């Protein structure tokens, strides 16, 4: 079991007990404790003697026999034990990180004689996660408005926007949690939470309906001395700081609910402990020309973060972008969030907390290489949906080792009629296809009438597409009715941007909001926005040219 850095993991079963060497406990370690502290100070003197022995921790933790040492990182150093300033012998010293202890398993491994006399373990650090006593909780940020998603997130939070047919965006993060063995998950909601609450329910699809742990929804609240709307990511955590305390968490994993990716957080936690970090930030390489869209981390050769620049204009800060995934030691997190004041607010992790920690804490980067997308804009949303149709895209929904779980509605299989034609598409249960579907993603229950054509589009649940209608490069929300013979996304006028939302609708995608009823027989151009609940009477007579908003 070797990690990426080549450091041996906890030796455990691989090492035999050395019967000849007595345990330091048996020699009465309390007498050694003070000396060990000195040994720690003088560890750089490195004295090589064969009679080295183990000395117990020196980092402030009470090292009493029988104390429970809960999951931690430790480092083994060879050191010299001095008595009254006189070097007497050399010893291996175990350094523990602050405020954490060894689990009983690790304690046995170390002090009942299993890894001593194994020189290759010296000056390496180890993390102990198999003890099972470490408490990891995850907190998912799911309150964002996602304004750039236009009407798709008008009546629901961005994490609750349907994606890849039957999923919601938050399913990816939630599934990552349970697939990583984290069953204690809080979802912090704020903006339009109803759809999200409905979706998550008691957490059954993710096996998060549990007696211990499970999923909790944390809404903003009013208290005596505190409580208000969440002003930012870390403010949301700060307002729920008692949740972390009450769960007696050792590690808090902070996640964003609006990204599409598969990531094993347990590997990141392992790395976090190995580096003895106070906080680890997941980063990934992005193309140099995109660095101005992300928070960029500059690291030294040990992956320690030395500088953080939010959306840098210059290109000299490196290409490691923060993914908005943080692993915190709970005590440090609580401490740093509590330090905020008017001058130095602690409202946002990227803007305030991480930059402030770089100078005083151990902030490490964890490199992630894999598929990761922030579907923050209409174009990214549309593109990512269709990208999944390409087997080479790097994201396999059909991977049975990393299932993405979701609340599945009870729907019959897809029915494809005699004139139905479907190619390069994903179609969900409950769809009935009597027309043509090409290079599109259809959510459950979509009805495509005979003669209708759906091309390069994303169509959500229970939308009805009338006979002879045509959809081209359109994103259609749920329960929309497209009248017979209507053309949505018509013409070659991709250039005319939407007049009301020029920054959001400018790539030729026409967007239709939930429950809109589009009249039959009209032509609707590109970059058109049709708001939610629009009825046929709301449309002006005749065609709708590109860039219009209804």
């Amino acid at each position: 079991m070797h990690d990426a850095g080549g450091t041996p993991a906890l030796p455990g079963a691989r090492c035999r007990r050395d019967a000849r060497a007595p345990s330091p406990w048996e020699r009465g370690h309390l007498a050694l404790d003070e000396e060990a502290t000195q040994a720690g100070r003088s560890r750089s003197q490195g004295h090589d003697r064969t009679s080295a022995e183990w000395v117990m921790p020196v980092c402030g933790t009470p090292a009493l026999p029988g104390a429970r040492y809960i999951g931690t990182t430790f480092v083994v150093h060879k050191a010299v034990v001095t008595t009254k300033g006189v070097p007497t012998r050399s010893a291996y010293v175990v350094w523990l990180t602050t405020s954490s202890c060894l689990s009983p398993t690790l304690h046995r491994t170390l002090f009942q004689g299993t890894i001593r006399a194994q020189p290759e373990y010296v000056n390496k650090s180890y993390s102990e996660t198999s003890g099972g006593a470490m408490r990891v909780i995850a907190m998912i940020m799911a309150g964002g408005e996602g304004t750039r998603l236009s009407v798709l997130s008008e009546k629901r939070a961005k994490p609750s926007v349907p994606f890849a047919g039957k999923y919601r965006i938050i399913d990816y993060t939630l599934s990552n949690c349970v697939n990583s063995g984290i069953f204690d998950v809080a979802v912090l909601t704020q903006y339009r939470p109803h759809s999200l609450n409905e979706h998550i329910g008691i957490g059954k699809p993710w096996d998060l309906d549990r007696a211990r742990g499970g999923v909790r929804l944390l809404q903003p609240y009013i208290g005596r001395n505190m409580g208000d709307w969440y002003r930012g990511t870390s403010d949301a955590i700060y307002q729920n700081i008692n949740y972390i305390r009450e769960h007696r968490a050792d590690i808090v994993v902070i996640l964003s609910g609006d990204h599409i990716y598969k990531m094993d957080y347990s590997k990141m936690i392992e790395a976090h402990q190995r580096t003895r970090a106070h906080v680890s930030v997941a980063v990934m390489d992005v193309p140099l020309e995109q660095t101005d869209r992300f928070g960029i981390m500059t690291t030294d050769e040990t992956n320690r973060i030395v500088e953080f620049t939010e959306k840098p204009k210059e290109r000299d800060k490196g290409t490691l972008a923060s993914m908005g995934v943080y692993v915190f030691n709970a005590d440090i997190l609580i401490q740093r969030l509590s330090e905020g004041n008017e001058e130095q607010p602690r409202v946002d992790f990227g803007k305030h907390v991480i930059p402030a920690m770089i100078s005083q804490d151990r902030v490490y980067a964890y490199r992630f290489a894999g598929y990761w997308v922030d579907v923050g804009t209409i174009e990214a949303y549309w593109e990512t949906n269709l990208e999944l149709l390409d087997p080479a895209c790097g994201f396999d929904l059909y991977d049975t080792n990393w299932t993405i779980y979701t609340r599945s509605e009870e729907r019959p299989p897809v029915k494809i009629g005699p004139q139905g034609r479907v190619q390069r598409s994903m179609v969900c249960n409950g769809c009935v296809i009597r027309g043509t579907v090409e290079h599109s993603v259809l959510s459950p229950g979509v009805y495509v009438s005979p003669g209708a054509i759906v091309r390069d589009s994303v169509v959500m649940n229970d939308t009805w597409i009338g006979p002879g209608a045509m959809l081209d490069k359109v994103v259609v929300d749920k329960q929309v009715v497209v009248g017979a013979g209507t053309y949505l996304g018509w013409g070659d006028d991709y250039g005319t941007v939407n007049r009301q939302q020029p920054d959001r609708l400018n790539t030729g995608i026409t967007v239709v909001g939930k429950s809109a009823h589009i009249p039959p027989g009209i032509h609707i151009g590109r970059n058109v926005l049709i708001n939610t609940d629009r009825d046929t009477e709301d449309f002006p007579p005749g065609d709708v040219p590109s860039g219009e908003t209804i």
Partner: protein
Amino acid sequence: MLRTLALILAGGDSPALNVLTAERTEAAVPFAGKYRIIDFALSNCVNSGIYNVGVLTQYRPQSLNTHLGVGRPWDLDRAQGGLRILHPSPTPEGGGWQRGTADAVRYNLDFIADQPAETVLLLAGDHVYRMDYQPLLRLHQEREADITLAVHNVSPHEAYRYGIVSVDANGRVERFVEKPRRTSISLASMGIYVFRKNFLLEILGGQEVDFGRELLPRLIEQVTAYAYTFDGYWADVGTIQAYYEANMALIGETPALDLYDPDWIIHTTSAQRPAVEIGAEARIENSMVSDGCRIYGQVLRSMLSPGVFISSGAVVRDAIILGDTWIGPDAVVDRCILDEGVRIGEGAVLGEGDDNTPNSQAPYTLNTGLTLVGMRSQIPAGIHLGRNVAVRPRTKESAFGHDKLVPSGTTI
């Protein structure tokens, strides 16, 4: 709500379904892609407001037990009532295996007596239908009947398969004849009985093992028995041909059984699967395809369960393919039923030629040209199978030997 106890008989071995029931009871056989046959009876129960359900099992119940779990898809994981699986257990006298429908219920008389229910609704777990039981139960109450039978019109030439009922003008049952060789009456018992609970406890005091064959013909003239005529969709899919036809009927434009009705959802245990993926060269026509399927070849007039993989160049015609079966490149599957987890090698042809020789081991049940492949069998690449061939479950490639041609009617 708990005044009615539903008992679903799901213990039959149904030999006529050949390899499909070799490793599971008929109630657990997949149907219409993602469903199991028992889903229809169970969903009918909860859609009719009956939340106290016992499922009586005996033959190969493992697959059924896994499917039912604690009854969550049907909202039957309840503190009061809910889903109970009633399985046989040895008796002090050395018996315990159930020899028929009445015998199965008799073994659970204590359970039935303890239930708060006044009425017992006895159902078959191997029929495909959608039926609101409430009108049936209401009729039973209004007429103060001891027993009420649900009956269905069948064509007289099929009457030999059913218990046939003759009724008077008021709907009262006059006679019950099990599987008559010839009859002019076309009202068939659907195997759905409503009993007054105490009446059921009384009549099972004897030794009769079957309701249809022994108890009902004798009792019906002495007690207050009524018939309730049901004219919705109902199919007994107890033979390979009936199973095949009932599946294929769903593919038609407006099938008699509407699975898409939001007011009468058929609930089932859905696996977590992504959407159907359809490749650039794929062609799908007149078919039903379930979530998790990946189609790169041709699928015509077929029913696909979840997770089926159709490689490019493969052609699937008029077939029923159950979950997670893998069809290799350029393979041809014509008029076949492939069970779960089957692997069809590259270029294999299943269902070839016009030779309709009935299956040598099951000539009466496998004679309509359908070729069957049992669960988790492996069909070697390049092999040609004729019609009416049956491949037993878990057959390895080596069982086919060196022959590249398996003639019609063979069993492997």
